[in-house]
């Protein structure tokens, strides 16, 4: 199946790209998608995961055509 991957903020800079399209087996979790997209890098513990723009666990199953976003803790708003 095909999954779209997106990286944001400091994670995007560390990985040197803002995302990828990955081909992966039919049964896969968000964490599997991370490994495939990063060439086997371990998933940092503080990284947040979203599947189709909704927060998800790294063990959440992904489906063909899904978009998986990985990003650092959020820091919006103001004082």
């Amino acid at each position, binding site marked *: 199946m095909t999954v779209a991957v*997106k990286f*944001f*903020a*400091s994670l995007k*800079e560390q990985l040197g790209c803002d995302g990828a399209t990955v081909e992966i087996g039919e049964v896969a979790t968000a964490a599997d998608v991370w490994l495939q997209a990063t060439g086997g890098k371990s998933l940092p513990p503080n990284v947040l995961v*979203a599947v189709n*723009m*909704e*927060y998800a666990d790294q063990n959440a199953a992904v489906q063909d055509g899904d978009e998986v*976003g990985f*990003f*650092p*803790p*959020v*820091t*919006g*708003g*103001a*004082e």
Partner: protein
Amino acid sequence: MKVEVRATPLAPWRELASYEEAHPELAGGAGAASVFVGSMRDSNAGDSVTGMTLEHYPGMTEREMLRLCEEARDRWSLLDLLVVHRVGALLPGDPIVLVAVWSTHRREAFEAARHLMEQLKSTVPFWKQEQTDAGRRWVEKNTPGY
């Protein structure tokens, strides 16, 4: 109800005035409006900050903001909500966020605006990168609001 992510300058008080003009039903019904405006500071963690870039996750950010507003509307008795958040390049003094909540009585407006602001900082995908004399750095932590 209006939720917006904006890449151009935000003038919160003008924004508020035009929103109220466009919603005349608020006059009379709303006994209370609670408004929060957050702006960029010129220092952070002991360093002078000369600029900031705010990044977001297009699509998800708007969705999360909308979800928070809908949750607030379910939890409190509110008449209307307006949330506008900046992205892109900012300078010290630039407004970053406007949260406005209208309700019949003050308690709901105060509580909902405060809650929305805290949730905005902790769950909505926005990331700040500061420019300091030493270079650019990502902001890693939020200051607690309570």
